[in-house]
């Protein structure tokens, strides 16, 4: 049997005519797109334009008012928070502020999904957690620390280790580099790209970081005026004539990033 991973894979994420409203407020207007597996999608847009809502819809924390969302070929349920475990285990989520359980130490935080899966083998958990911990660049001596004692960069790393512990095929990141200094941010990006090369997952991330868009993302989706303006590789996006893209990608700061 020649195993070639290939065209049979379902889309990692598929939106079909998704509309979202909060009361009278329109958030998403008819959003449709497909994301192939193995891509890194960067979601950009102005603050408050519904990027995080889109991400929350993929996680299953919120449901659209209209339309369907498929994750790894499975339709998400119509009620928020009713995600079955099987689906939720396909994806790992890195929340903006880490969302570590403050009552558990680093080790227990990372081991939590494993224990919830019903794994009781202590040696197994220990091996796996220590491996992930080292993988995200932390040492075993950090394992006993409480989340309150961690720096911002460490919180992100621990949260990433927790998101990766079940080997998800889809990784969802909400502003992965916000609140990090440039060095930590750079280190985090190179860590992500290293892991990406090795673990072969799909990534959807919300970000404002132009460097990430340039260095890491294989595709960029731009949200503005409640709509998905464009979803394509970065050069195509840069060439798009929409006024928001002009503001976002062709200002002085962005030109510094993209023109070098």
């Amino acid at each position, binding site marked *: 049997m020649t195993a070639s991973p290939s065209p049979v894979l379902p889309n990692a994420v598929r939106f079909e005519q998704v509309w979202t409203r909060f009361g009278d407020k329109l958030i998403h207007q008819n959003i449709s797109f497909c994301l192939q597996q193995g891509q890194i999608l960067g979601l950009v847009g102005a603050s408050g334009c519904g990027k995080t809502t889109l991400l929350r819809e993929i996680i299953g924390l919120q449901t659209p008012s209209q339309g369907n969302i498929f994750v790894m070929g499975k339709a998400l349920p119509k009620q928020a928070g009713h995600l079955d475990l099987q689906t939720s285990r396909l994806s790992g989520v890195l929340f903006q502020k880490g969302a570590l359980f403050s009552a558990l130490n680093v080790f227990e935080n990372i081991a939590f999904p494993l224990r919830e*899966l019903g794994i009781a083998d202590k040696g197994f958990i220990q091996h796996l957690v220590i491996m992930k911990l080292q993988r995200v660049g932390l040492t075993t001596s950090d394992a006993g620390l409480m989340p309150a004692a961690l720096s911002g960069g460490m919180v992100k790393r621990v949260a990433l280790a927790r998101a990766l512990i079940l080997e998800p095929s889809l990784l969802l990141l909400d502003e992965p580099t916000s609140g990090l200094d440039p060095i930590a941010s750079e280190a985090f990006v190179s860590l992500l790209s290293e892991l990406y090369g090795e673990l072969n997952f799909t990534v959807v991330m919300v970000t404002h970081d132009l460097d990430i868009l340039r260095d890491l993302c294989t595709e960029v989706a731009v949200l503005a005026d409640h709509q998905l303006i464009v979803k394509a590789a970065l050069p195509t996006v840069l060439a798009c004539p929409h006024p928001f893209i002009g503001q976002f990608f062709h200002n002085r700061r962005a030109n510094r990033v993209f023109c070098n």
Partner: protein
Amino acid sequence: MTDKATDFQAIPQLETVQQADGQFCAVLSGSWHLCAVVATPKLRALLQQCAENAVTHWDLRSVTALDSAAALIIWRAWGGQWPAYVQIKPEHRQLLQRWQAQVLPNPPPKSNLWIGQGIADSIGSVAGHLRSLLILQGQLLLDVAYLLSHPKAIPWAEISIIIYDAGVRALGITALVGFLIGVVLSYLSALQLKMFGAEIYIINILGMSIIRELGPLLAAILVAGRSGSAMTAQIGIMRVTEELDALSAMGIAHSMRLVLPKIAALSLVMPLLSEWTNVAALLGGMVSALVTLDISMGQFVMKLPEVVPLANVFIGLGKSAVFGLAIALLACHFGFRIKPNTESLGIETTNSVVASITAVIMIDAVFAILLMKVGVP
């Protein structure tokens, strides 16, 4: 669509086949993902069984996908060493080799807990509580002295908000509880008094017990549960969201802006609430007396001032003010002890309520002993 999905998540499988030379060979196939492997306990049992039977030939070439966690499961089934004959894709071999290379650090030595240590710790913790309570009180005293000389700095707005939250909004619940307790107390006493033909003494019993003891105590316990816990949680959340630090950075003292208004407001509002509870409880008692003993409300109201000396009202009022002070002080004390994690928030809020109710009852006992001869007819 469905066959695509199943191909993507091909079920992990393990078969043992007998080779031409009579040896058994374990053949693994499918996609070995952690979740899939864990979801099929049979598979792990089979894996374990093969390893225990010392199967030396393993064929992993048909495995379409292997993640590092599933690799660890296989590696541990092998007992941490390569079987004699393994056929495996190079990328999967790499995963297993990584586990081969991993060395676990020694676990840190567990600290030995002995009973003396536990006792010493709890003495230390009590001393710590007393010390920080003392500091808080000292700070408050300084604040009060400052405010006396600078009356413009008195935080009226905060005080009034707390009076509204802890006082006005508690009127309903205190009235309800007071009324019901009055009814029950009156009914139970009436049963006893009837036996002696001393029905008229119901007014003495209700008047003395409610005005001197039950009213203030009931109100204080309700406020401790209602507002004390809220104050502790509020200060705790302010710690978590760094609002406390923001106040400090602006040069605003916590004791002045957060503690003092709470204490001032509760000391003011508790006597009023306890009088309110008294009224409700006496009303309940009156209704019950009317029904069970046929003592009219008018008679009750006329007789009450005769049998309950006025001193009792003042004792109740004074006690209540002290209760309010103690509840607010303890609530703030425990609030500042909250560390920025969820567990600590729960623990300290519980501690706050338990400590303030205990303190209220202890203070009540002290008052009872000190004022043994006062206000008794």
